């Protein structure tokens, strides 16, 4: 192929509307491949408590609701679209969950796995036969159990810990793990361990000149990883003129990019640090995330024989 156009987005955190937009991005932007860079699952479950007489009670965006079963569907849809998981439950189960909060972890796991399973059916339905390749990598916020949902998929490929070829041409390695965060998320490693993982993958690349490093965590302190600086209570430190920021990216990712000098670095993780930078010859991008507003932020990248020819940040 003389030119390959790829679309990269990241951090949709369970937003069904963003995922649906992602699936349509290939066609809309005429991209040859669409890539999702991690953190695909949501952070929040909204309990919808059946209170008897076919009525469900819940709170959404600060407003309390009590709706009938017939009215429920519209609300379920709205909650899913925003990145939260509706969970139909009973007062008894709610009481049990209050008593044994450890059970919530299982509910989360089952709910988000089922949600992603449904998404993959949708992806198969929309992309099969389209010629558009689709790669979805889990991110640090995605439960480890999610990996099994991607097994034996025909249309969607989870490229993590593999060497894949986009359009049989561009070599890509992917890693959804990040360095340590204050939240103890499912896929985190110490910098040294993270370096061992990604360096091990990078060693398998035949031609780094045209390689893509799809690492969820951005490289440290290059402008793609600025997040609000937090105090010990995890509250952003703010003052006159705005919120203080700090680089939170990975030194291991930076070291690997500097050592192997790939063509392209695809990153996410830090929603507020949308941008593009060049590290040596490597073009690195973090498209940012605006998933909570249902807007899919992404980056369209045009690659020719010489490397990255052009790019465009999108908000669709």
């Amino acid at each position, binding site marked *: 192929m003389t030119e390959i156009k790829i679309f990269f987005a990241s951090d949709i955190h369970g937003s069904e509307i963003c995922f649906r937009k992602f699936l349509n991005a290939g066609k809309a932007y005429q991209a040859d491949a669409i890539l999702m860079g991690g953190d695909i699952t949501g*952070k929040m479950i909204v309990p919808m408590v059946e209170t008897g007489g076919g009525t469900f009670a819940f709170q959404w965006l600060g407003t309390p609701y009590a709706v009938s079963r017939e009215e429920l569907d519209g609300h379920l849809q709205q909650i899913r679209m925003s990145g939260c998981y509706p969970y139909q439950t009973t007062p008894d189960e709610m009481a049990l969950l209050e008593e044994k909060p450890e059970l919530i972890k299982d509910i989360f796991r089952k709910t988000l796995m089922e949600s992603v399973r449904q998404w993959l059916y949708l992806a198969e339905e929309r992309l099969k036969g389209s010629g558009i390749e689709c790669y979805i990598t889990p991110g640090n916020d995605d439960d480890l159990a999610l990996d099994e949902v991607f097994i034996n998929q025909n249309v969607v490929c989870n490229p993590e810990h593999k060497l894949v070829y986009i359009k049989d041409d561009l070599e890509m390695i992917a890693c959804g793990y990040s360095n340590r965060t204050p*939240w103890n998320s499912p896929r985190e490693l110490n910098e040294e361990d993270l370096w061992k993982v990604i360096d091990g993958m990078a060693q398998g690349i035949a031609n780094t000149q045209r390689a893509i490093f799809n690492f969820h965590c951005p490289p440290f302190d290059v402008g793609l990883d600025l997040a609000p600086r937090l105090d010990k209570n995890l509250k952003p430190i703010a003052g006159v003129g*705005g919120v203080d920021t700090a680089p939170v990216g990975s030194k291991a990712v930076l070291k690997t990019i500097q050592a192997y000098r790939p063509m392209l670095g695809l990153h996410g993780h830090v929603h507020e640090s949308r941008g593009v930078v060049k590290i040596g010859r490597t073009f690195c991008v973090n498209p940012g995330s605006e998933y909570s507003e249902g807007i899919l932020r992404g980056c369209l990248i045009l690659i020719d024989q010489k490397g990255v020819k052009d790019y465009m940040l999108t908000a669709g």
Partner: protein
Amino acid sequence: MEAAKQSKVSRAFFVREATGLVRELSWFDTFLCGFGILNVGLGLVQAFAYAPYVFPGSNIALAFVIALPGAFFIGLLNSLFTAAMPRSGGDYVWVSRSIYPVVGFAVNFFVTFSVIAAAAVNIWYLASNFLAPAFYVFGLKDVAAWVATGPAAIILGIPAILLLILIFSLGLNTVRRVMLVLFLITGVGTLLWLLIMALGNNNGFIAGFNGLMGANAYQGMIQTAKEAGRTVDPAQSGRYSFYAMIYAFQMYSGFQMIGYFAGEIKRVSKSAIQAIMVALAAGALFFIIGALVVVRYFGNEFLGAVAFLANSAPDKLNLPLGAYLSSFTIFMTTNPLLRIIVSLGFLATIIWILLPQMLIVTRNMFAWSFDRLIPSWIAQVNERTHSPIIATIIAGVLIYVMLLVTLLTKFWAYLVNLAGVGALVGMVVAAAAIIFPYRRKDIFDKAPSLVRKTIFGVPLLTWAGIFTLITQGLVVYVAFTTPSIGGAVSMGSLLASLAMFIIAFPLYLIPYYINKKRGLDNSLAYKELPPE
């Protein structure tokens, strides 16, 4: 109510361990961010430098009151847009999404140009009206006299801009820390300045002024202005006070910048509106009381005379330093410590205001670069300093070029019409707010309940847009029907100002076609992707 009672559930949601779940900024944290930008001391000084000249006999305190409802609707518009799109980053994206990307760019380009022009004027005044008094109170009277001259501003503009570039090259956190220090110095200086006036009286000022300038110099200033053609028609006082609100609007601006960091505000619909409205109310209180105190202390006739001579007959203005109120500290007190604190406070205030101005220019360059409208190397982050050095240097150079244009040509006279054209641009943002709920129903429907609130079936954001449109329309009318604003208003001067808005269209369209030819269609950058 019944539904609300029935729907009580023990937990609204369950949250798992995931990144980004931070504690929310309180409305007070958010308020501090916005209120800091609303610069009370500088606002009063600037309002009294022009309004008494353009609108002789106007009541500036009343003008601040009259401007308040309009500022409220502008604040409401900003709050609601911020709540609907907290991570979008301001009017560029709001207009792009609501109307068309090219219109969004034109608005943003003009805003950037206005900020560059304002920063250039601020650097000019930094020398003449803020640095000169500081030198004076430290006993360097000859240096102060030289600093107050135009050529000094050209020379001193270079280190001032180099200092700005240096601060920005050290990163945004350094910028914020410098802002905090300057804010504290400004705050102490401004409060002390207001206190000196509140505890003093007009006779005290007259004595201080005459003491340094010679017997009857105070009355002489008023007389000189009269002889130079200053007249006040008491019958026009009400009308002029109404018109003077356009200056009050300029002083009220800044609190809207809260939208730039709204991504960090968790309950944004509540916090942003609370913070913006409280910042506006606190600012209004300071401005109104401050204006009353200033008039009581300096005397309305004297303030009018100084503004008149400074703007229309500067050769007749016999003052050792500039004509801004900040230069009058030397007449207000003989206490050297008070003089130093107030003068340093004013000096800090003008340097302080340059920082957010520089920030807006570089931030917008980033946005244009990401949208492929300017070469990407401009916004490249330097690997060694981790800051966008090139964009910062370009911003500094543009401000300096504008300083030269301002001081060496008559260009600025035309550009004063920027106030009017700026309001025209504000009308475009208002139009975006009016149509947003209907044109971008997809985003509007997902917005917090406050944004979706309706009055008589019309969304609150649309109402805010309508009233902002009326307010900005009024500013446009006053700006283009008042001869003193922008010199002699002619079709040429109007077009010179409008050109800065219009030029944005080819600046957007040329790279658009180039990029399209290369295989990337810029019009897709903000286009909504179909979810189905």
